[in-house]
């Protein structure tokens, strides 16, 4: 099958059964690859209510049709599972060399099922597939075990490993590959750990069949040349993602001290330019990528710095979350923190966020020295490394922190809950958004929890004016459709984001490679389908799922110290969210409508629509109670409505109602209450 490996590999770790199934061309035409395959297979194969750490969860590893062929950066692979971090749709996307290798071995998808009776790894060399003992690698760090596997097999094997954190079921454990690439987010390493799967080693030797080799090569050459001629390329090759550190501070979007602030006073010590001079030893690219944004670094032990490590990175996100957010004041400390996380096998984004959360809890007296086992403070790399190890081995306070900020904060109490910087249970990544309304919405509505790059909207905020809300919901939706297209194709989107590469390049080369003809609009429509499918996964898995899951923490509506005002308010956010739902064809609670599901051929998900009525408790205070059916009464709604619409239905003029509270918190009339909410209406002067 042109452009594809042609097979699905299914491995059941419980029974030891290994099967290959042919890839159905109709399935490939409709779901394209990568994230499309992963989302659909996960929806079908993991049953409702599955325990993310149970035998019934599965990991879907999916490559795409442009992976491994002659296009820039055809290197991306998707990992999907029900997320132990969030309880919803879990997916993480990774570069490196694994995705092409799957195709050379003949596989578009690897499905991991069941739980191995003892620590195991999966060995794949073309058609030869074996589940082997991983006893000797178990307990070892990600980088160490990758090195061991390369020595035991051969250098040319492409390898995935997990570290102690994944083995110990830390909820934000990552999958590591190529000594520094990770599938970091949503706990994919945790699911490997729960299955006692330490590693996968793969090697393939076959060619990928291409529909029109001549045309594909011509187009590929054209694409490479466009990139070579781009004046912005050099900057990317030199600095990679850390090149934006200074910019993120200039626009005040840099996570600082657990998002208390958005500008870090030491940011110049963390910039890509300084990093290149001080610690970078070589460039490290994903397969087929001319941009080589990966940097390999070495920090030397000196009188000033304590640690001697080799590490890939740090990337911008690591610098933002481990650097600014934990207030580490220099690039050497960040590189060390990065290495600690990489070897233990924890996502640097969530780890930076969880550790910053712990640091702030300590500062505010919510966690004491006795709880933590030592003093914990912002800016101290030893505090960072200490907590990272506690987390990875689930020791002491690490046992609580290993659950992620949302669930850890519930243990520490309501004051701590205010400090948990997460949405849907996933820690917010490296762009603060008090003054970036599109970015706020992009984080809030992101399909895996708060992750920046499923729709990197902040540049649009800067471009059109950060305070403006007009057009932003539509832009976020557009970006949320472009990104899955790249993820389905199995290529990186940075050529488009950073070098202004035309999207029209992709349907053309896709046709030359696969023989399938698509228009760009059609590809983006498939993205919309994937976006709606994953939304339905959340609605299916989480009782009461809806708009409250799209809300950012209260901290982002508050003016940070040293600033006079911010643009994001609860009211503006609610309006943006409702506009977004409307444009998406979702109801007011953010659930896809039947009409939308039918339009996208997602009828098979309709049985999973929440059909429960929304029950509210209404209380009325003041003289206006005479206008309502009673002073206290229950109200049942078939569909979510705004407060304004509820008043209309009750035939009460909204201008007579002065104040609305929802569960005791001040609300506004555009708010859409959820099932079980207690709503109180008050007159303007309710004193009598």
């Amino acid at each position, binding site marked *: 099958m042109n452009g594809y490996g042609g097979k699905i590999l299914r491995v059941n770790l419980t029974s030891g059964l290994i099967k290959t199934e042919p890839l159905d061309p109709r399935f490939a035409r409709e779901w394209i690859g990568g994230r499309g395959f992963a989302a659909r297979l996960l929806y079908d194969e993991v049953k409702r209510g599955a325990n993310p750490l149970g035998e019934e969860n599965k990991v879907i590893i999916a490559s795409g049709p442009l992976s491994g062929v002659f296009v820039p950066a055809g290197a991306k692979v998707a990992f999907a599972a029900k997320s132990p971090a969030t309880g919803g749709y879990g997916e993480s996307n990774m570069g490196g060399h694994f995705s092409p290798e799957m195709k*050379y071995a003949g596989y578009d998808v690897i499905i991991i099922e069941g739980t191995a009776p003892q620590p195991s790894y999966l060995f794949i060399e073309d058609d030869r597939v074996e589940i082997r003992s991983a006893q000797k690698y178990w307990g070892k760090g990600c980088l160490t075990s990758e090195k061991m596997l390369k020595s035991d097999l051969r250098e040319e094997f492409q390898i995935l490993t997990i570290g102690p954190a994944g083995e110990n079921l830390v909820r934000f454990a990552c999958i590591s590959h190529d000594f520094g690439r990770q599938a970091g987010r949503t706990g994919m390493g945790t699911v490997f750990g729960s299955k006692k799967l330490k590693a996968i080693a793969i090697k*393939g030797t076959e*060619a990928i069949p291409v529909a029109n080799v001549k045309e594909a090569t011509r187009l590929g050459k054209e694409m490479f040349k466009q990139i070579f001629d781009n004046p912005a390329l050099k900057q990317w*090759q030199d600095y990679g993602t850390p090149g934006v550190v200074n910019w993120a501070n200039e626009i005040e979007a840099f996570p600082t001290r657990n998002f208390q602030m958005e500008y870090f006073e030491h940011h110049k010590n963390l910039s890509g330019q300084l990093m290149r001079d001080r610690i970078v030893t070589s460039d490290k690219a994903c*397969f087929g990528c001319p941009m080589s944004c990966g940097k*390999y670094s070495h920090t030397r032990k000196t009188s000033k710095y304590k640690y001697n490590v080799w590490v890939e990175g740090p990337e911008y996100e690591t610098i933002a979350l481990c650097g600014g957010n934990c207030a580490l004041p220099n690039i050497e400390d960040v590189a060390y923190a990065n290495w600690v996380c990489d070897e233990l096998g924890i996502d640097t984004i969530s780890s930076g966020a969880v550790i910053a959360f712990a640091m702030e809890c300590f500062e505010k007296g919510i966690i004491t020295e006795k709880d933590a086992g030592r003093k914990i403070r912002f800016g101290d790399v030893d505090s960072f490394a200490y907590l990272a190890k506690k987390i990875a081995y689930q020791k002491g306070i690490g046992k609580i922190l290993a659950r992620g900020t949302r669930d850890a904060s519930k243990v520490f109490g309501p004051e701590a809950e205010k400090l948990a910087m997460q949405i849907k249970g996933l820690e917010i990544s490296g762009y603060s958004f008090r003054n970036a309304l599109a970015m706020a919405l992009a984080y809030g509505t992101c399909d895996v929890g708060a992750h920046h790059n499923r729709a990197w909207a902040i540049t649009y905020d800067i471009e059109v004016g950060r305070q403006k809300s007009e057009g932003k919901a539509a832009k976020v939706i557009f970006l949320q459709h472009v990104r899955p297209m790249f993820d389905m194709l199995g290529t990186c989107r940075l050529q488009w984001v950073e070098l202004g590469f035309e999207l029209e390049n992709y349907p053309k080369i896709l046709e030359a490679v696969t023989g399938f003809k698509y228009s760009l609009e059609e590809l983006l429509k498939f993205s919309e389908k994937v976006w709606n499918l994953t939304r339905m996964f959340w609605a299916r898995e989480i009782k009461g799922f809806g708009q409250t899951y799209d809300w950012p923490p209260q901290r982002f509506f508050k003016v940070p110290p040293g600033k006079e005002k911010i643009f994001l308010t609860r009211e503006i956010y609610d309006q943006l969210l409702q506009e977004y739902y409307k444009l998406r064809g979702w109801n007011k609670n953010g659930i896809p409508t039947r009409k939308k599901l039918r339009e996208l051929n997602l009828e098979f998900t309709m049985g999973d629509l929440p059909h429960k009525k929304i029950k509210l408790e209404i209380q009325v205070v003041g003289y206006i109670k005479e206008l309502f059916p009673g002073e206290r009464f229950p109200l049942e709604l078939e569909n979510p409505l705004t407060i304004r619409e509820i008043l209309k239905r009750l035939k009460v003029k909204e201008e007579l109602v002065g104040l609305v509270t929802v569960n005791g918190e001040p609300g506004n009339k555009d708010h859409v209450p959820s099932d079980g909410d207690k709503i109180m209406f008050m007159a303007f002067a309710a004193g009598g």
Partner: protein
Amino acid sequence: MKIGINNSLCSGCRVCQLICALTCEKVNNPKKGRLEIVGHFPVPGGYEIKMTDECNQCGQCVRFCPMGALYREDEE
């Protein structure tokens, strides 16, 4: 032409292997490329490019190496 190698500039992207296999073997399979890339990780990092004896010095890899790790020696 004669192809020169500067290992310290190699990013390990394997575009050279891809274009080599496409040019010389007409297949999309970097494993058929007439050069090899060997990584040295985690310590000290970096890559090593090894030309095989089959290389006919056609220079396509030089044209598409994004890092300048492969170059024409006669142009130096």
